[in-house]
C-alpha cells in the first residue's frame, strides 16, 4: 500500500464558480482561467503516489503550485476537489478534531524560513510537537535531546534560536520534526534559505539520516541539482500541473516534454547518470584486464580520473564480476552532446 496517494486533487484560490469548474473540465491553462475568472488554480488535477520510505521530491519554479501541494498533503490547505489518501485513510474527509489527531501521529513538517519559536530554547523548540501531544515534560525533553544529538546540536540546547546560524536553525527545525517520530516528513524548501555549502552539507546529512530512519519524505525544492541529488523519485510541476514523474535518471535522460527538456538541458549529467547507464556489454573475447576498473553503480563523473593518460576504455564491474565496458567517446557524447541514452542501457 502506498503511504500517500493524491487522487485528482485540485486547489483553486479565489471563488470556485461554475465557470471555473467548466474551464477546468475543458482543460484550460492556469493563466487562461485566471484572466477569464480571476481565480487562481494552484494545483490542477494532480495525481501522485508516494511509496513508503522513499524520498519524493516535488520540484518546480515559484508559482508552480509545489508549496500548495505539500500543504494539501497535511491539509494546512483544504483541497477544492479530489481525494487525499494517507496510509489508506481519506484525509480530506476528516473532521477538525480527527485531523488534529491525525497530524500529530503522522506528519512532521520542516519550513523554508525555519519557523522556530523565538521565545523558546532550542530544546523546547525541539520538544514542541511532543508538548502539543501532552507528553510529560521529562519524557519529551529526553526525546528532544536525542533528536538534537542526531542533527549534531546537543551542545546548543539552552540557546535561543536567534543565537544560531541559519544552517543550525534549520537543524533545529529538522530535529523538531524528527523528535516527533512520525513516518511522514514534509520538507518545504527546507534548505533553500541556506548558502550553497551548508545546503550541500545538509543534503548529505539528510541522505545519511534517511538511510537509518527510512521515513517517507516529501521534499519541495526549486533547485534541480538538489532534487536530483536527494530524490529517489522526482515530480516536476509547471503551472499547477505535474509535468513528469520519474527517477532522476529518467528525468535527465528521457524528458517527456519540452518544459522538462528545457529544465534538464543545463544539468551536469555526470552527477546524475551512473556508469551502468552508458556502458556497453563486455564482449567475451575482449581482454579487459589491462583497463582501470570502475563500479557500475558509480556516478559518471567518477570516471574522469581514470580516463587520464590516453586510456579510452574502462572495465565496469558489479560485485567483482565484469559486466561491461565504458568508452571515453560514449561518455563524451552523452555528457557533451546531450544525446538520449539508449533505451536498453537504462
Amino acid at each position: 500500500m502506498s503511504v500517500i496517494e493524491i487522487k485528482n486533487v485540485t486547489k483553486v484560490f479565489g471563488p470556485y464558480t461554475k465557470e471555473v469548474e467548466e474551464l477546468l473540465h475543458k482543460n484550460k491553462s492556469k493563466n487562461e482561467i485566471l484572466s477569464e475568472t480571476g481565480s487562481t488554480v494552484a494545483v490542477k488535477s494532480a495525481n501522485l503516489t508516494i511509496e513508503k520510505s522513499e524520498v519524493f521530491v516535488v520540484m518546480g519554479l515559484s508559482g508552480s503550485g509545489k508549496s500548495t501541494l505539500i500543504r494539501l498533503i497535511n491539509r494546512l490547505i483544504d483541497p477544492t476537489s479530489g481525494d487525499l489518501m494517507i496510509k489508506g485513510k481519506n484525509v480530506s474527509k476528516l473532521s477538525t478534531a480527527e485531523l488534529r489527531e491525525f497530524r500529530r501521529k503522522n506528519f512532521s513538517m520542516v519550513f523554508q524560513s525555519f519557523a522556530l519559536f523565538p521565545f523558546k530554547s532550542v530544546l523546547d523548540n525541539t520538544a514542541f510537537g511532543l508538548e502539543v501531544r501532552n507528553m510529560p515534560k521529562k519524557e519529551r525533553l529526553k526525546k528532544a535531546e536525542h533528536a538534537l544529538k542526531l542533527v549534531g546540536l546537543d551542545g546548543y540546547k539552552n540557546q535561543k534560536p536567534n543565537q544560531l546560524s541559519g544552517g543550525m536553525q534549520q537543524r533545529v527545525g529538522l530535529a523538531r520534526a524528527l523528535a516527533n517520530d512520525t513516518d511522514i516528513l514534509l520538507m518545504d524548501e527546507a534548505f533553500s534559505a541556506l548558502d550553497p555549502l551548508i545546503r550541500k552539507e545538509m543534503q548529505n546529512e539528510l541522505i545519511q539520516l534517511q538511510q537509518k530512519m527510512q521515513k517517507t519524505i516529501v521534499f519541495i525544492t526549486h533547485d534541480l541539482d538538489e532534487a536530483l541529488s536527494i530524490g529517489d523519485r522526482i515530480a516536476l510541476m509547471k503551472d499547477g500541473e505535474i509535468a513528469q514523474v520519474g527517477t532522476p535518471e529518467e528525468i535527465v535522460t528521457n524528458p517527456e516534454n519540452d518544459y522538462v527538456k528545457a529544465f534538464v538541458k543545463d544539468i551536469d549529467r555526470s552527477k546524475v547518470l551512473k556508469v551502468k547507464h552508458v556502458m556497453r556489454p563486455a564482449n567475451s573475447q575482449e581482454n579487459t584486464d589491462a583497463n582501470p576498473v570502475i563500479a557500475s553503480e558509480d556516478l559518471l563523473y567518477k570516471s574522469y580520473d581514470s580516463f587520464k593518460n590516453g586510456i579510452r576504455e574502462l572495465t565496469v564491474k558489479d560485485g567483482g564480476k565484469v559486466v561491461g565496458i565504458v568508452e571515453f567517446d560514449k561518455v563524451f557524447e552523452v555528457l557533451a552532446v546531450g544525446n538520449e541514452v539508449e533505451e536498453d542501457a537504462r
Partner: protein
Amino acid sequence: MLDNIPRLPLSEWTTEFVRWITSAFSFIFDPINNYLGTLMNWIITGLEFIPPVLFIIIIMALSAIFMKKKVLSPILIGIGLLFIYNQGLWENLIDTMTLVIISGLISIVIGVPLGILMSRSNTFEMLMKPILDLMQTMPAFVYLIPAVAFFGIGMVPGVFASVIFASPPTIRLTNLGIRQISEELIEASDSFGTTPMQKLLKVQLPLARPSIMAGINQTIMLALSMVVIASMIGAPGLGTEVLSSLQRAQVGPGFVAGLGIVILAIIIDRFTQTSNSNK
C-alpha cells in the same frame, strides 16, 4: 432650506438611553459600586498603613530587581517619592496609585480577551475598530457624565471612566500583535496538531507579547491621565489638588501636584516598560 429639517433629537435619545440603562441595570451597578468601592478603600487603607519610609524602600527594591544592572533608576525613584512625601501629597499619591492600578487591571482583563477575539474574526474587528476610534477621540470629560449616572460620585465612577478611556490601546495592540505573527509560525503550530487553545497559549500570546505589553503600558499611562480628570467627579488623589488649585488660581500648589503626577507617571512607565523588555 436646511432649517426645515427638524433637529435630530440625539441628545434626548442619549439621555433617555443612559437613564434607562441606569435604572434597568442598577442591579449590576449597585453591587459593583459597593464591592469595588469597599475593595479600593481597603487597599488604600492598607497602603497608607505602611510607613512611607518602608514603602519607598520597597518600591526602590522592586525597581532594583526589575531593572537589573541599572543603579540610577532606583535612586531617582526614591528621590521622586521622597519629594512627593515632602510636599505633603503622600495620601493623594496612594489614592491615585490605587485608582490607576485598579483601572489598569480592569482594562487589561477586559482588553486582552477582546483583542484576542478581534484577531480571530474579521467581522468583529470591523465592528470594533470604529467603536475604539470613538472611545479614543471622544473628549475624556464626556465619560464622566454617564459614570456619575451609573455610579454616583467617588472612586468607582472614576475607575469606570478610566477603563473606557484607557482600554483601547491594549485591545488594539493585542489584536495587532496576534495578526502580525508570521504565517509560517502559525502553519508550524498547526502542522504539529495544536488545538486552538494550545495555539493561543503556546504560540500566539507569547509571540504577541511585546506588542501586548506595549499596549498595556499605553493603557496604564492613559489610565493615569484619566484618573486626574476623574477628580472632577470626586475621585480622590493628586488630581484633586490640581483641580482645587485651578479653581482658586493658585499656580504654586497646582505645579507641585502636577509634578507629583509626572513623577508617578515616570515610575509606572519604567516599571511596565522594563517588564516588557525583560527576556
